[in-house]
């Protein structure tokens, strides 16, 4: 069941040819650690921040004041997170079972050499196990159906499904080209109408929307204000041509997400950006859906000859690394393999070999030990892709961090106020030049 050694070996092999430094052998004890506190933001959208609900600060936020010009207390994040999760708070309408902590402490270390930037993150998980499982396809005796959902979903709230969703560590990077990001950070990207936010979109609204139809999207996700004629209304998308001009001018933010199931399995972090939507870079991600869109059956199952089983059952959850890796332990699904009710196969298949192009830029190594994730994301310097922010020695960037912990997605994360990251330059987080 335990594939960790295999995966780690595979990851190291892959790193070997591409990197100047092996992130596992960097002496992190010599790299300064910046201690950040991330807090639970609930539904504090771009629009709420500019509303009367943001008492005494709506006009200041609208004119572009920074969050920390008011939120400057030494324990601000702890206080805000605790308040929002305390119950009966306008920013969190849902009681999330088992969610106790309104904040998480994050340690960030940074280094760079001639080829890469290395970002090392450490944080404690709420649960006594790593959140490295994701949704499954479960056979109910007749059909394969999705099993496990993020905790904010109604089916989990109602107890009809278990909460199963991967942990994540994310960073948004701005190189100074997105107006307002240096002051208000990730809150520029979070809007009413998005999934699990107030006034959530309807399918009909999305189907009737010119921009989302043009870019072939069927829901509303993060976007930057400049992509809308009215930044507070997701429905007012600018033309595809105007948005292309924004992209060409670099008016987008980088979004790198390390995913404990869908990218960790193959020693990578995904590579995306936020402009008119939360987009993946060009090429192919390291993960893809494992359900056949026509038959709803899995496309792949585990290779019994290699791992000793072709599926698992619910009693085996949280007891191993249940990664389905196309080139390592997967074979095409056999519908006649004697499936029984309760058999489960991952809903996503991962592959380093299939990851291609700009979407495959970022590597990562990670482990979970004694209740703590340690993740090192490796980002090549000087990327020239049109959907990447090129990191350079001497550069200073505005950054925001997010941790998804305990089987949750969308607003259920912990976030930071905006910080700066400098590669050998003065900043909140200073990346050290490696010898």
């Amino acid at each position, binding site marked *: 069941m335990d594939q960790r050694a295999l995966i780690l070996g595979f990851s190291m092999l892959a790193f070997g040819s591409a990197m100047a430094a092996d992130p596992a052998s960097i002496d992190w004890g010599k790299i300064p650690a910046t201690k950040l506190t991330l807090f639970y933001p609930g539904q504090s959208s771009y629009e709420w921040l500019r509303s009367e609900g943001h*008492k*005494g*600060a709506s006009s*200041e936020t609208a004119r572009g004041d920074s969050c920390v*010009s*008011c939120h*400057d*207390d030494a324990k601000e994040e702890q*206080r805000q997170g605790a*308040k929002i999760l305390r119950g009966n708070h306008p920013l969190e309408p849902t009681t999330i079972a088992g969610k106790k902590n309104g904040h998480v402490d994050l340690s960030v270390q940074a280094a760079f050499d001639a080829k890469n930037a290395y970002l090392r993150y450490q944080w404690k998980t709420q649960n006594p196990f790593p959140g490295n499982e994701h949704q499954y396809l479960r056979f109910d005796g007749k059909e394969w159906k999705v099993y496990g959902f993020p905790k904010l979903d109604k089916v989990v709230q109602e107890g009809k499904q278990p909460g199963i969703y991967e942990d994540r560590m994310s960073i948004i990077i701005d190189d100074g080209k997105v107006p307002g990001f240096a002051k208000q950070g990730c809150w520029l990207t979070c809007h009413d109408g998005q999934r699990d936010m107030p006034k959530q979109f309807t399918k009909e609204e999305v189907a009737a929307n010119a921009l989302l139809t043009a870019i072939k999207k069927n829901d509303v996700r993060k976007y930057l204000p400049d992509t809308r004629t009215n930044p507070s209304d997701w429905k007012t998308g600018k033309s595809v041509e105007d948005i292309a001009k924004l992209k060409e001018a670099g008016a987008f933010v980088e979004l790198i997400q390390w995913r404990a199931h869908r990218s960790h399995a193959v020693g990578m972090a995904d590579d995306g950006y936020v402009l008119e939507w939360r987009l993946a870079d060009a090429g192919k991600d390291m993960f893809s859906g494992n359900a056949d869109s026509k038959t709803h059956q899995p496309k792949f199952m585990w290779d019994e000859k290699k791992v000793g089983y072709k599926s698992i059952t619910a009693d085996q959850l949280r007891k191993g690394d249940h990664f389905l890796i196309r080139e390592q332990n997967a074979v095409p699904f056999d519908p006649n393999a004697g499936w029984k009710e309760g058999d489960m196969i991952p809903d996503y298949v991962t592959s380093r070999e299939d990851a291609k192009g700009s979407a495959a830029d970022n590597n990562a190594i990670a482990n979970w030990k004694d209740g703590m994730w340690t993740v090192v994301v490796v980002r090549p310097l000087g990327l020239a892709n049109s959907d990447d922010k090129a990191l350079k020695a001497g550069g200073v960037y505005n950054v925001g961090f997010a941790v998804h912990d305990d089987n949750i997605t969308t607003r259920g994360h912990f976030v930071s106020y905006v910080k700066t990251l400098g590669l050998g330059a003065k900043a909140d987080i200073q990346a050290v030049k490696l010898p």
Partner: protein
Amino acid sequence: MSHPAKHRPLIALVALFGLCLSVPAFAQFDAEAAENTFKDNDCHKCHHATKAKKGPALKKIAAKYKEKKLDEKEAIKHMTAGQKVKLDDGKEEDHKIIDTKDVKVQTNVARWMLSH
């Protein structure tokens, strides 16, 4: 008038008791509880201890109250009435109302604020 030496400790005790009674009431407060209430109500977003933010510093408020001989009752009125306040840019805004009707809690916050 002189007092026998054996009565002097008693006189000192009575004098101390009298002194306690003469100390202004706002001097007695639970600072930690007051600061928690203050920050839980996001008052610190506008009022810093020493520097001006959107609202005046607590130190400046305390000095003004002292100068005008205002007491905690006025401070409580300010935090509970939602009255208009004038900002530096000339605009007027409703002052936030503290999220408690407990007079003891309000009094504790007022005393702590005026102690700056």
